[in-house]
């Protein structure tokens, strides 16, 4: 009586070991939407027997695996450029270090950002989706790794030019960056505390005692807001066009995600606060 779609998938897996449950997509109709694992069989609109249509989603990877590989790559790649490993720049610069303080600072910030992300993926995030297709990991990692290499190449280049407004500009960028990193972390912790382990119930996030979460009054997805802020800080700090480009693309992508989430919230909760926008307070 409480059998779910997941049980069907397990039985299917027993007969066909190749298609593990995460890879199966079962529908009641070839054109209908995919059935979720938790749906109880008795509630489905069928009679005493039912036919399911199966499609193969391809090899799957857990979201955790994907996040980790997306973050470890840029971390290592940036350091390769920072230490000026051979074959990147002219041989006379191999293993030298930059004379600009800003370059060391940028390396610390960049590495801190990705180490923080790796630790969050391991200990803080509660990921509700199970898996994603294998192709995604190549696409995502390719993008993150290539842009990291592109940025790192110019920041650690022997001919790098420090920012126009000097130390003032670097400090401003640094403060913005650090502020947003702390903010981003606070939001992740707040979101984690919303969900009880194992439950898939959704709840509206609200501001807590932490001042960094007070932005929840104005924004649905402040983690993205803080992320964009961090990268803007990094751009100001390094004054580097590839970084600006990366920030812009990240902003566009996160806005798309934020709008999706915001719409999801509005659909799910009748009493969702009306003052909130998706990513930029009052603007977007």
């Amino acid at each position, binding site marked *: 009586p409480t059998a779910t779609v997941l049980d069907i998938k397990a039985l299917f897996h027993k007969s066909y070991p190749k298609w593990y449950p995460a890879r199966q997509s079962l529908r009641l109709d070839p054109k209908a939407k995919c059935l979720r694992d938790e749906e109880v069989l008795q509630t489905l609109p069928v009679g005493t027997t039912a036919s399911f249509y199966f499609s193969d989603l391809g090899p799957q990877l857990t979201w955790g695996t994907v996040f980790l590989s997306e973050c470890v790559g840029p971390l290592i790649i940036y350091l390769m450029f920072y230490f000026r490993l051979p074959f990147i720049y002219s041989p006379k610069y191999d293993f030298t270090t930059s004379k600009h303080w800003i370059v060391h600072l940028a390396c610390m910030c960049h590495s801190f950002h990705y180490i923080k992300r790796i630790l969050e993926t391991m200990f803080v995030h509660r990921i509700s989706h199970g898996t994603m297709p294998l192709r995604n990991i190549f696409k995502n990692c390719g993008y993150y790794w290539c842009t990291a290499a592109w940025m790192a190449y*110019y920041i650690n*280049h022997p001919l790098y030019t420090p920012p126009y407004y000097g130390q003032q500009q670097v400090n401003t960028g640094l403060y913005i960056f650090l502020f947003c990193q702390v903010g981003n972390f606070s939001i992740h912790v707040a979101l984690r505390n919303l969900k009880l382990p194992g439950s898939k119930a959704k709840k509206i996030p609200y501001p807590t005692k932490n001042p960094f979460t007070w932005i929840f009054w104005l924004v649905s997805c402040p983690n993205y807001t803080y992320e964009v802020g961090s990268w803007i800080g990094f751009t100001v700090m390094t004054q580097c*066009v590839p970084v600006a480009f990366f920030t812009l693309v990240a902003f566009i992508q996160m806005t798309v995600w934020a709008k999706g989430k915001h719409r999801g919230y509005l659909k799910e909760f009748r009493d969702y606060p009306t003052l909130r926008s998706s990513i930029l307070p009052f603007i977007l």
Partner: protein
Amino acid sequence: MASSEEDGTVEEKENNNKKRTISTLATAWLTFYNIAMTAGWLVLAMAMMRFYIQKGTHKGLYRSIARTLKFFQTFALVEVGHCAIGIVRTSVIVTGVQVCSRIFMVWFITNSIRQIQSEESVILFLVVWTVTEITRYSYYTFNLLHHLPYFIKWARYNLFIVLYPLGVVGELMTIYAALPFVRRSGMYSMRLPNVYNVSFDYYYCLIVVMLSYIPLFPQLYFHMLRQRRKVLHGEVIVEKDD
């Protein structure tokens, strides 16, 4: 690259149960646009033939038609707008890629690099483009007016088989011929050190563009072949489920 859009007009399709019609205003505008573009490319064709007959050589031919070519090819940008607002049922990205590659050839290669304007490959792709565009725009015009002669349909879906590869050859040869001049002049390039901490080498960019033809050309070519089978022979192609 030669255009390879699907049949773009939004009309009641015979095989389709979905009926999507566009407003009279949109139809009027599209008809006007397609007639104007057909006329424009006809003018180009006439001008090219006249030049060759009068002068007997292709040297200087590009200079004589450059302004008209730039005007009509650039004006094709509105087609992206048509797809975006939905009066033409083609993907914005496909049209965007087509138009951008044409604009790239016209403005960033032949317009900027004077020395290659008398190359034979330029004439090759100009002829290919002219024939393709006249066929394509007259096809759209007749389609909108519901009086499509079979030979136009035949031309549109058969000529590309030869014209498309020829056009690609012409374009690639032109870019290849332009490379030494780009390298020597260092045009459109930016070197370190500079305030923005970025560098760009147009020479290597062109090499990447040439290499990108390798994956893109077959995809577009086979797309057109599939369209051809669907339109001319009414075959239903079963797409692989991703």
